C-alpha cells in the first residue's frame, strides 16, 4: 500500500501547529511537527475519525427573533456535519427558549445533543410585524 503524507493544522490552540503525518493502510505511522501531545492525539483522530463541534441556527416560532443559535454538546463525525445541519433545518422551536435548553437529544444517534446558546423571549418581536 502507498504511504500518504498529509498536513493537518491543529485547531486546539492558537499555535495552529502544522502537523505532518504519514499514513499507511489507514493508520498513522509517523507524526512530525506537533507542538504537544494533545496535538499528536489530535492528528491521529483527524486521520482515523475526524470530528467537529458544530454550531448553527434553528428556526423559532413566536420569538423576538426568528432564529436561535445552537451548538453541539460534543463533536460529530466530520462527514455527518451536513446531515446534522439538515436535521436541524427541519425543526421549528417555539419561544420562549433558555440558554442551555436541549433542542435535540442524541442527534442522529451520534451520542451528542444540540443545545440553545441564547435566550429568546416570546413576542413581541423587536420589530413590529404585520
Amino acid at each position, binding site marked *: 500500500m502507498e504511504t500518504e503524507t498529509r498536513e493537518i493544522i491543529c485547531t486546539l490552540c492558537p499555535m495552529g501547529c*502544522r502537523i505532518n503525518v504519514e499514513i499507511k493502510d489507514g493508520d498513522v505511522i509517523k507524526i512530525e511537527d506537533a507542538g504537544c501531545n494533545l496535538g499528536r492525539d489530535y492528528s491521529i483522530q483527524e486521520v482515523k475519525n475526524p470530528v467537529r463541534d458544530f454550531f448553527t441556527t434553528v428556526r423559532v416560532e413566536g420569538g423576538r427573533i426568528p432564529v436561535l443559535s445552537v451548538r453541539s454538546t460534543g463533536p460529530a463525525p466530520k462527514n455527518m456535519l451536513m446531515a446534522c445541519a439538515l436535521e436541524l433545518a427541519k425543526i421549528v422551536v417555539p419561544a420562549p427558549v433558555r440558554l442551555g435548553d436541549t433542542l435535540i437529544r442524541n442527534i442522529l444517534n451520534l451520542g451528542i445533543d444540540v443545545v440553545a446558546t441564547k435566550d429568546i423571549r416570546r413576542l413581541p418581536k423587536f420589530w413590529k410585524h404585520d
Partner: protein
Amino acid sequence: MIERRLDIVVIGGGAAGLAAALAAKENGVDSILIIERSEELGGVLPQCIHTGFGLHYFKENLTGPEYISRFIKKVQDSGIECTLETMVLNLTLERQILAVNASQGLMKLQAGAVILAMGCRERSRGALCIPGTRPAGIFTAGTAQRLMDIEGCVPGRKVLILGSGDVGLIMARRFAMEGAEVKGVVEVMPFPGGLDRNLQCLRDFGIPLYLRHAATFIHGSDRVEAVTISRLDDKGQSIAGEEKTIECDTLVLSAGLIPENELSKKAGIKLDPKTGGPLVDENMETYVENIFACGNVVYVHDLVDHVTQEGEVAGRNAARKILGNLPPLKRRISLKAEGNIRYVVPQIISAERPLTLYSRVKRPAFNTKIMMGRNITVHKRVVKPAELVTIELTAERLKDLEEEEKLTVNMDTQ
C-alpha cells in the same frame, strides 16, 4: 428635553462597554448609564454563534452569545441602567451627550466621565473601489452574519468571499452549513489573514482558497452574476491573463474593520491615524480628561476576552477618577510605531508599573526583535498581521527604559 447628570456614561453596550460598566460599578460608582443603539445588548457577540470565546477569561470554549450572556446577566443583576435603541448624536469635550430614542425623544446628559465603547464598522465595497456593477447581493461579512444568524435569511446560494480573515473563514463555514455553495475565499496576501486553524473551515468543505488574488470586476446588473478575480504580482498588481471569472450570486466582503470614531471626531478627541482610534494612555484615558475608551473603538482586537479585560481597565479607572483616587501619571512617554510595527497601544505610558503593550505588524516575520527606544529588545519567534503582538514591559525591562518623552517602537529582522 430630558436632562440628566450621571457619573459615568458608557457609549456602546457590546463586550467592551458591558465590561467597563461592570468594573465601574464594582469600583464604587452607582450612577452609570449604558447607551446602546441596537435593540439588544451584546454588540456583535449575539451573532457570533461559533465557539472560541472565553478561552482565556472563563477557561471555557464558548459561543459568542453564551459569552456575552454572562455579562448581560451581570449587568441586569447589578441594576446598571441601560437604554437601548438610543443613538448618541453628539459628544463634547466637556462630556455633554446629546442622544435620541423613540420612547423618550431627545436627551441631554452631563457625564462626570465618558467611556467610549462604540466598536467598529466594516469596510464597504465602495471603499474598496472594486470595479464593475452595483447589483444586489454584495454584503459585508458582519451584515451577512447578522442577516443569517439573527434575522433568519440566507443571503445567497452561490457565494464568493473576499478576505481570508477569521470572519471571512467563519462565514464560509456558515454559508456551507446553510446549504449554500461557497465558490471560494479570495485573499490579496500570499498568506491567509486569519488564524491557521480557521482554515479548517475551508478544508472541511472543499472550499478553494485563492491566495494572492484580488476581485477585479463584479458582474450582474440587478443581482451579482459573477466576480472576476486576478492573480497579483509581488507589487500587488493584477497579472494580465491570470483572471478567473467565478459564477456566483453573492459577494461577501471581509476586508477590514474600521474603529467607529465619528463621535470622537465630532468631540475633537485626538485620534491615532494608525489605529483609527483615540490615543490612549495606560489607564485607557484619551487625551481628553475623563473621557476613556476601550475595545474595538480604540483598535481592532483579536479576542473578545482581551476586549473584556481592557473594558475592565477603563471602567475601573473611570470610577477611580470620579471618586478622586486615580493619581495622574507621573510621566507621559509617547510611543511611536515605525517600520514593520503598524501601531502600538496604549500610545502613552508612564513606566511606573509593569504593563502589556499590544501591537500589530504590517508583514509577517520570523525570529525577529522588537525594539523600544534604544534599550529594550523583545524577541519574537513569529509575528503575523492577523495576530496582535504582545510586548511585556516587565519591571526588569522598565528599569532599562531611558529618560525620553518619545520612544520609537520598531522591528529588526535578523
